């Protein structure tokens, strides 16, 4: 069985074209949000805060801010990408095409992750206008950027297949992703938390993502870098396993 490269490319292009049609919202949104965060957290509140681990508060929140957008964008893009064909009925074509489930996933998740990485880079560039940004381990940073985008795009893909309505599609990011990100040390070091919340936080997978990403910037994080990488990879593999099961069983796709 040969790889259907044309098919993957078709889906990837289709999804990227969808993003380009809404280029304005895609780019202006994250840039504006980031600027607001810097004005509120960096400027107004941050100026009254001590530095965290020797890093000024404004700089400290840069990795967390990027992660926040990365997670939201990945889940949002990948979930709508696969939910919309289900909603409009055009999914019949995907199901009847000579394309494997993994090829479909590469197309959809690849496009969603690409968009997230681009947005991450834009936020990073925007941040540099407000605070000094130094990246100690650029390769690790890129690796985390890509891994997180892919992992959460996979998660979004699952969400899009699961969802039966637009409400459900918005419900999970609102109730799960946003709280986990905010409580995952995006804007603080979990060392700042009193017990038992510090221990509770260690059950939040986003803590490991933010921590690892922060390590690539400043050379230190809340948890060990190897552990961060391990948890990110484990999450990615878990999502892949769920997707493999979905396509094997036809859950919510085929009757």
């Amino acid at each position: 069985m040969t790889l259907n490269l044309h098919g993957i490319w078709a889906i990837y292009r289709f999804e990227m074209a969808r993003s380009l049609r809404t280029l304005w919202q895609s780019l202006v949104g994250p840039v504006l949000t980031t600027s607001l965060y810097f004005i509120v957290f960096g400027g107004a509140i941050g100026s009254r805060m001590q530095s965290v681990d020797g890093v000024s508060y404004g700089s400290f929140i840069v990795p967390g801010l990027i992660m926040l957008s990365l997670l939201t964008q990945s889940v949002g893009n990948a979930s709508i990408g696969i939910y919309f064909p289900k909603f409009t009925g055009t999914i019949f074509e995907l199901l009847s095409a000579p394309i494997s489930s993994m090829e479909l996933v590469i197309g959809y998740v690849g496009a969603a992750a690409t968009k997230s990485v681009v947005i991450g880079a834009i936020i990073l560039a925007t941040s540099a206008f407000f605070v000094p940004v130094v990246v100690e381990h650029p390769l690790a940073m890129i690796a985390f950027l890509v891994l997180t985008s892919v992992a959460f795009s996979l998660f979004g893909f699952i969400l899009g297949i699961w969802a039966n309505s637009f409400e459900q599609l918005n419900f999970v990011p609102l109730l799960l992703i946003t709280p986990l990100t905010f409580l995952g040390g995006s804007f603080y070091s979990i060392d700042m938390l009193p017990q038992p919340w510090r221990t509770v936080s260690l059950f939040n997978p986003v803590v490991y993502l933010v921590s690892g990403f922060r390590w690539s910037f400043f050379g230190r994080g809340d948890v060990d870098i190897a552990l961060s990488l391990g948890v990110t990879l484990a999450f990615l593999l878990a999502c892949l396993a769920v997707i493999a099961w979905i396509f094997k069983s036809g859950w919510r796709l085929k009757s």
Partner: protein
Amino acid sequence: MTEPILTLSGVSKTYKGGFTALHGVDLAINKGEIFALLGPNGAGKTTLISIICGIVTPSTGTIHVGGHDAIADYKAARSLIGLVPQELSVDMFETVLATVTFSRRLFGRSGHSAYIEQVLRDLSLWDKRDNKIMELSGGMKRRVLIAKALAHEPEVLFLDEPTAGVDVALRRDMWKLVHALRERGTTIILTTHYIEEAEEMADRVGVINKGRLLLVDDKAALMQKLGKRELDLTLVDTLDRVPAGLEQWQLSLVNEGRTLRYVFDATQEDTGIPSLLRELSARHVAFKDLETSKSSLEDIFVDLVEERA
């Protein structure tokens, strides 16, 4: 008519709720023929097509397309198939050319092709190629769906209820296209619940009802079976039996003796009606009204089921 391009053996489908949509269907479709799947709404036509195309998983049975197993070797099998669904499911925000190119690529072919232009021209869509699909009329959207299904040059084309809600112009164009495709050797399988449509289009007809394929026959043979019509004569005076001397018409008395019924074959040169009417007036059997009716598709199915039982 040579070797079959599509074979189904023992294909059945029972949905999770316990409803059985298909009961062990066996079918062989010849290369290059136009096959009409005829049946009322809910007969299992769309389920059958969906199973062949990979949208619905069969509960039992095997399917081979061009010799390829539709599950084990689904890529090879599916690249031979194009499907025009019943619903107008298209990407509203895409342009015509973009969506047709997408379909071609999705089925594993390179996007750049003079073939796409040809398909769009054949379907009078070339001038609309840069229009967004949402700007098109319903008939045009259906043309787009046909173009998408043809984009990868399939050998087998499925048309699910192709004329449902379609205007006369499109209907005519569609038949022209179907014949042109057949000239090129494309096998066409269409579903319909209109006998006339099957008659107009197909080489062979399969009749399906309640998930069972009742019979598969050449169109001519089937049309003769299905061409039965009824002549009902409403009598002035009720009768308790058919008058003597009218045996050759095999009449029956219905409606408590108020109606005399004659079943005839409309495809015959001599329907027997003029002679019957002459004979009736000679015997002073008076009637106040007369009505002919085609047996409905439902009646035909009942007949077919009884015939088989």
